[in-house]
C-alpha cells in the first residue's frame, strides 16, 4: 500500500453525490451523515463548554460573581442536557460509527440509509427544541439534567419542553442503534465472521443493544413527567399514593446503562488504535469482545447505586453495591489487555496513541474513584458532592471525550484525505491534559471536604480549591482551542495524507482517502489480517 501520495483522489464522497448544501441535507451517504453529526456536535459541544466556563467563573469566589442563582441553576441543567444528550451519547457512535461502521464491514452503507438521515434530523429537531427553552416560555429548566420529581413537576420553568427534547433525542439514539445492529448482523463482508470483526464493532454492537433496550424506559418516564405537569396531578405525587423514588428508579434504569452507551464506543476506539501504533495484534481479542457484552449486560443491573441515600431499602442497597463492583471487572480486563498489547510492541507515539494513553490514565482515575462511589460507607459521604462531579467528568470527559479526540486524530486522514500538524496536535494534547486535571482533580478534594454539588454559592472554606479548578478550566479551554484550530486547519490546508498513513490493518484503510461514494472501488472480501507490515 502506498503511503506517499501527493494529491487527494478526485473520486471521493465530497465530490461525488452532488455539491451544495441541499445535497448534504438530503444525503443518505453514511459518511456525509457522519460528518453532519460531527459538525452539529461540534457546535453544541462549544456551547456547552462556554456554559461550563461561565459556571466555573461564577464559582471562583463565594457569593455572586457574574450571575444570579436562577441563571446558574439553569446553566448547569443546560450544560448537562447538552453535553449528555447532544454530545456524549451521540458523539462517537453517530460520528465515527456512522462514518466507519460500513467501512469496517466492507459494506457500501448502513442497512437503512434513509432511516439514518432521519435519525440526524430527529437529533437536530431535539437539539433545537432543547435550545428553544432559552428563548421561549418561562426560561429553560432549572432541575438539573436528572429532572428529579417532584421538583421537576413543581418548578415554574420550562421543564416540559426540555423533557420533550430529551424524548426526541432518545428516539434518534434508538434509531441509530437499530440501524447499526441490523448492519452488523446483515452486512459483514463475505468471509468476515463475528470474531473477525474489529473490536470497535463489538463495542458498537454492545452499545446499540443498550440504546435499544434502555432508552425507551427514559422515554416513557419523561412522558409521565410531561403528563404530570399537563394534568396537574402526578404518578410520583405522594398525595395520590405515588412514590418520588420510583421516578429515580426509572430514570436510572436508563441513565446508568446510558453511561455505558457513552463509554463503550470510546473503549472500542482505543482497542483499534493501540494495536496499530504498537504494530501487533490486540492481546486477548475475545476477552475484550466479551467484556464489552458483559459491561452492557451488567450495566443494566447497577442503577441503584445512584440511590444509596434516597431511602431505598437496605437489602437493595447491598445488592446494588455488590453488582456495582462487578461492573468494574470487565473494564479492568480491557485495560490489562491494552497494556499487554503495548508490551513488546514497536511503539510509535503519534497523536492518536497519545490521546489513547491519556484516555487510559483519566479513565483509570474515573473508574477507580467509581469504586469509592460503589462502596456503601464511602458513598454515603460523597454522594451528591463535588466528588461525584469529579468522578463523572473523569469518566465521561477524560474517558469518552479523550476517546473522541483519539478517534478524531486517528481517522481524520481517512475522512478528509489530509493530515493535521502532528507537532501541534501533541502540544494541544498536553495543554488539554494538564488543564483537565487542574480543573477536575480539585473536585475530589472538595467533595471529600463536604462540598455538595449544584451549589451556586459555597462556604468560604472551600474557596482555595474552587479557584484552582476555575484556573484549570481556562487551561483546558486553551488546549481545546489549540486542538480544534489544528484540526480545522488540517481539514482545509493539510498535506494529502495518503490512503493508509498509520499503516492500519482494518478494512477502512484499504480504500482511498477520502473514500469514494461507494466506499470501496471493488467489493471487498474479508481476509485474515496480517500484522507483519
Amino acid at each position, binding site marked *: 500500500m502506498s503511503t506517499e501520495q501527493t494529491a487527494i483522489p478526485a473520486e471521493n464522497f465530497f465530490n*461525488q*453525490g452532488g455539491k451544495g448544501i441541499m445535497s448534504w441535507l438530503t444525503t443518505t451517504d453514511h459518511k456525509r451523515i457522519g460528518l453532519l453529526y460531527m459538525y452539529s456536535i461540534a457546535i453544541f459541544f462549544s456551547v456547552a463548554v462556554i456554559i461550563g466556563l461561565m459556571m466555573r467563573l461564577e464559582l471562583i469566589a463565594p457569593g455572586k460573581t457574574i450571575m444570579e442563582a436562577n441563571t446558574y441553576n439553569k446553566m448547569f441543567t443546560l450544560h448537562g442536557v447538552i453535553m449528555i444528550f447532544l454530545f456524549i451519547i451521540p458523539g462517537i457512535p453517530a460520528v465515527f460509527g456512522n462514518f466507519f461502521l460500513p467501512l469496517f464491514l466492507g459494506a*457500501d*452503507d448502513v*442497512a*437503512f*440509509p434513509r*432511516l439514518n438521515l432521519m435519525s440526524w434530523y430527529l437529533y437536530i429537531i431535539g437539539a433545537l427544541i432543547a435550545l428553544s427553552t432559552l428563548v421561549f416560555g418561562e426560561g429553560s429548566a432549572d432541575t438539573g439534567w436528572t429532572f428529579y420529581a417532584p421538583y421537576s413537576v413543581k418548578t415554574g420553568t420550562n421543564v416540559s419542553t426540555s423533557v420533550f427534547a430529551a424524548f426526541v433525542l432518545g428516539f434518534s439514539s*434508538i434509531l441509530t*442503534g*437499530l*440501524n447499526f*445492529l*441490523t448492519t452488523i*448482523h*446483515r*452486512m459483514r463482508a463475505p468471509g468476515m465472521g463475528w470474531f473477525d470483526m474489529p473490536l470497535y464493532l463489538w463495542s458498537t454492537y454492545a452499545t446499540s443493544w443498550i440504546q*435499544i*433496550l*434502555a*432508552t*425507551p*424506559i427514559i*422515554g*416513557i*418516564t419523561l412522558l*409521565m413527567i410531561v*403528563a404530570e405537569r399537563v*394534568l*396537574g*396531578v*402526578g*404518578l410520583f405525587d405522594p*398525595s*395520590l*399514593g*405515588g*412514590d418520588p423514588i*420510583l421516578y429515580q*428508579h*426509572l430514570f436510572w*434504569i436508563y441513565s446508568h446503562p446510558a453511561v455505558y452507551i457513552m463509554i463503550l464506543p470510546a473503549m472500542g476506539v482505543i482497542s483499534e488504535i493501540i494495536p496499530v501504533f504498537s504494530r501487533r495484534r490486540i492481546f486477548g481479542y475475545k476477552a475484550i469482545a466479551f467484556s464489552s457484552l458483559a459491561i452492557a449486560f451488567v450495566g443494566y443491573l447497577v442503577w441503584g447505586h445512584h440511590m444509596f441515600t434516597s431511602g431505598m431499602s437496605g437489602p437493595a442497597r447491598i445488592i446494588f453495591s455488590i453488582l456495582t463492583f462487578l461492573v468494574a471487572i470487565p473494564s479492568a480486563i480491557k485495560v490489562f489487555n491494552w497494556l499487554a498489547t503495548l508490551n513488546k510492541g514497536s511503539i510509535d507515539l503519534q497523536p492518536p496513541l497519545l490521546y489513547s494513553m491519556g484516555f487510559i490514565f483519566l479513565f483509570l482515575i474515573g473508574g477507580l474513584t467509581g469504586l469509592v462511589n460503589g462502596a456503601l460507607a464511602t458513598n454515603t459521604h460523597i454522594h451528591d458532592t463535588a466528588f461525584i462531579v469529579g468522578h463523572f467528568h473523569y469518566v465521561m470527559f477524560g474517558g469518552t471525550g479523550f476517546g473522541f479526540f483519539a478517534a478524531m486524530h486517528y481517522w481524520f486522514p481517512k475522512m478528509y484525505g489530509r493530515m493535521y500538524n502532528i507537532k501541534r496536535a501533541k502540544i494541544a494534547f498536553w495543554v488539554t491534559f494538564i488543564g483537565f486535571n487542574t480543573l477536575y482533580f480539585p473536585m475530589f478534594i472538595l467533595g471529600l471536604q463536604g462540598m455538595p454539588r449544584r451549589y451556586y454559592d459555597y462556604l468560604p472554606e472551600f474557596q482555595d480549591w474552587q479557584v484552582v479548578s476555575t484556573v484549570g478550566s481556562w487551561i483546558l479551554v486553551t488546549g481545546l482551542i489549540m486542538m480544534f484550530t489544528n484540526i480545522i486547519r488540517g481539514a482545509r490546508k493539510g498535506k494529502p495524507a495518503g490512503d493508509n498513513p498509520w499503516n492500519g490493518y482494518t478494512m477502512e484503510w484499504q480504500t482511498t482517502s477520502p473514500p469514494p*461514494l*461507494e466506499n470501496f*472501488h*471493488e467489493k471487498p472480501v474479508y481476509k485474515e489480517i496480517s500484522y507483519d507490515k
Partner: protein
Amino acid sequence: MNMNQTISDHAVHRDDEASKIGMWLFLFTELLLFGGLFLVYTIYRNLNPDAFANASQELSVAFGTINTVVLITSSLTVALSISTIKDNKPKMAKNLLWLTLILAAVFMVNKYFEWSAKIHHGLFPGMEHFMQLPPGEALFFFLYFFMTGLHALHIVAGSIFIGVVIAQLNKGKIKYDDYILQENAGLYWHLVDVIWIYLFPLFYLIH
C-alpha cells in the same frame, strides 16, 4: 466503477431479513416503552393492593372482553392476509386487511364509549371526583388512562401502517415474492395485540 452503477446497486439492494430484524428491534423498543409503564403499575399495585382491586371493579369486564376478542380476531385477519399474499392472492389479502381496519375501528369505538363513561364519572386525572379518590385508586385511574391511551395511539399508528400496505398492494408494489412491508405491518399489529393481552387482565380482571 462509476457512479451510475453504484446508484443502481443501491436501488437493487434488498435484504428482507435485515428489514425484519430492524422491525423486531423496533418492536423491542415499543415493548420496553410499555415495559416502563408495566413496571410502574407493578410497583404501585404492590404498594396499594386493596385500592387497585377496588378501583378495577369500576371497569367493565364485558367491554374489556369484547375488545380483547376484537383485537385477537384482527390479529388473525392480519396473519391470514400474509399467508394469502404468499399464495399470490393480492385481492383476498387486501380484503383481509380491510377487515382488520374495520375491527380496529370497532375497538376504538368501544374504547370511546368506555372512556367517556369514565370521564362522565369524573375519573379523569385532575377532575373533581378523581381528586377525592383514595390515593391508590387515583393512581390506578391515572395509569388506566395513560396506558390504554398510549395503546390506543398504537392502534392508530398500526392502522396507518396497514393503510400504507393496502395502498402498496393497490399499486402492485407488494407481491407474492416481495411482501416484507406487509409482514412488518403484521408484526407491528401483533405487538399491539400482545400488549393488550397484558393490559386486559391487569386492569379489568384482577380484583
